[in-house]
């Protein structure tokens, strides 16, 4: 019994990492039909944001509240990835709507650039740029509207962006001066250390549940709940779904489809940032960290189908549990009397990478029966 609970917990933990990583990808794909190959790199940005936040919280001024850095990091990572995602949408993806394959290639290009950027630009500069972008985008919202009168609009715009650029430069030089780790460019992996309260375990029924995994499960749960609420209950969520179903009609009804695109993509990217926080707690962070998670995300999207968020959730947990059962060789422990041929077959797949092989094979078999995933779209609008 203990074993079953333990492996179930492990499966759920792996599944929730998959889920948080795939959530943004699935939303953007489901609502906009765009597969963002730079999703993994947005996660990587989120993970680096966590790292930078953590280092900043080590400064003497913030030391007393160091333990809370993870919560702040979630917000920071969300914002950073969302802003980068929005820039990506405005500059590249917007030109490619209706050409999903071309979008795939272009976002791959973006992911290469982001990877190399992290490798060859010191983190302090990157942070400075992120801060500048954030202030530049937020300032206009804070400033009174009547400042933007016809003849001065350009001037004010120029002013806000110069101020933000200045803030960016100051903060980046400040950071590189105070925290030497941020001042150098480095392709080396960095490690995020979890705060003390997250390092231990949580004991129940004689089983130890590692705190980090519990935290990740909680983060994922909150993210899923807020996304569900946002899409189903909030005004903008309903607008987003309206645009998904009938773009031109929504346009006619006065919904700004451009804003909807930006919002959808921003949220999807922001969720990638949150996923970045989660993966930074699990292992070291490097420029390639996103790539190792992205294929898991693809499997989730393919298995879950595009129609429904529920599909994404179920698919993540299924894959998580199977990966854990097979990959960690747990199935043999649970069921020791397994017939020998089956046991040797299971043993063959009993590593994490071989478990992936098995999961992929299972998905391909599954697709033979349900080609459109767990929750396919129905009706006459579906193209034959």
């Amino acid at each position, binding site marked *: 019994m203990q074993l079953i609970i333990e492996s179930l917990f492990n499966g759920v933990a792996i599944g929730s990492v998959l889920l948080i990583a795939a959530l943004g990808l699935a939303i953007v794909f489901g609502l906009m039909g765009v597969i963002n190959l730079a999703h993994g790199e947005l996660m990587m940005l989120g993970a680096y944001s966590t790292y930078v936040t953590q280092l900043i919280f080590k400064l003497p001024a913030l030391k007393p509240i160091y333990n809370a850095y993870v919560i702040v990091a979630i917000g920071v990572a969300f914002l950073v990835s969302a802003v980068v995602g929005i820039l990506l949408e405005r500059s590249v993806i917007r030109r490619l709507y209706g050409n999903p394959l071309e979008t795939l290639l272009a976002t791959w290009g973006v992911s290469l650039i982001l990877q190399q950027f992290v490798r060859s630009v010191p983190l302090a500069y990157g942070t400075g740029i992120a801060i500048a972008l954030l202030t530049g985008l937020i300032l206009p919202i804070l400033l009174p509207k009547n400042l933007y009168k016809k003849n001065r609009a350009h001037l004010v715009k120029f002013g806000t962006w110069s101020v933000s650029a200045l803030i960016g430069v100051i903060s980046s030089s400040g950071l590189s001066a105070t925290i030497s780790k941020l001042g150098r460019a480095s392709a080396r992996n960095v490690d995020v250390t979890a705060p003390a309260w997250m390092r231990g375990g949580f004991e129940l029924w004689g089983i130890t549940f590692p705190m980090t995994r519990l935290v990740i499960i909680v983060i994922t749960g909150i993210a899923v709940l807020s996304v569900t609420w946002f899409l189903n209950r909030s005004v903008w969520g309903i607008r987003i779904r309206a645009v998904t179903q009938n773009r031109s009609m929504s346009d006619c009804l006065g919904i700004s489809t451009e804003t909807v695109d930006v919002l959808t993509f921003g949220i999807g990217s922001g969720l990638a940032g949150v996923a970045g926080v989660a993966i930074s707690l699990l292992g070291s962070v490097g420029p390639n960290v996103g790539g190792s998670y992205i294929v898991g995300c693809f499997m989730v999207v393919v298995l879950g189908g595009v129609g429904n968020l529920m599909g994404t959730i179920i698919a993540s947990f299924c894959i998580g549990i199977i990966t854990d059962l097979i990959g960690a060789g747990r199935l043999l422990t649970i069921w020791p009397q397994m017939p020998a041929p089956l046991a040797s077959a299971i043993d063959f797949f009993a590593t994490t990478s071989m478990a992936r092989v098995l999961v992929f094979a299972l998905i391909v078999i599954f697709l033979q029966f349900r080609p459109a995933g767990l929750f396919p779209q*129905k009706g*006459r609008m579906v193209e*034959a």
Partner: protein
Amino acid sequence: MSKPLLELRQIFVSFDGFLALNNLSISLQPGELRAVIGPNGAGKTTFLDVITGKVSPTSGEVLFKGFSLLRKNEHHIARLGIGRKFQSPRVFENLTVFENLALAVSKPKRPLPLLLGRNINRYSDQIHHLMSIVNLQARASTTAGSLSHGQKQWLEIAMLVGQDPDMLLVDEPVAGLTDEETELTADLLKSLAGDHTVLVIDHDMEFIRRLNSPVTVLHQGNVLCEGSMQEIQQNPEVIEVYLGRPEGGNL
């Protein structure tokens, strides 16, 4: 009456609880020209989808030449001799007019015979004949994507004829055509009937009248009535469906 070429028996189609076709039964004799009309949402396109295998019915039976079409793939049904023209013209935009027709005319449709088989020139005469019917000879090497809407409609009709099916399903062939082109299309379809069985769906009453054929009226996924154009126009039910209830006073 002889044995019907196509017969639909008690077809139901449900999309998530919405009944697109509701106990639809219809049969067509060989060589017949039949027009099907109906208001929006009457199930006209779904009706064609069921015949051509795009949608499988929830229950019911579709028989063509006495064989069931259920659970057959679209390409099987097409090879059995049912050709379809779509509502909005669908041609292969990056191929030329000639190549479009060549795909339709080509007898071998399996990959290997196509790869190893003889060159398209064998069909050249037939294709030029088709192009002359629909007046597209001068466009033989234009890509279909750069044709006008009306020309695409005609190209698709020519492709349909080139497929040489026993039965032609024609969905709104005159949408977006000029009056003159509409007349020509009506004449073309009439000339095809006899050798082929033709089923035409359209909204354009002038065009339907010109076809001078029996008319079936669909409403809410069911046959409302059948008869000549004259009879249909007198039918109070049809008037109600198309114009709304008199006591409603809307129209």
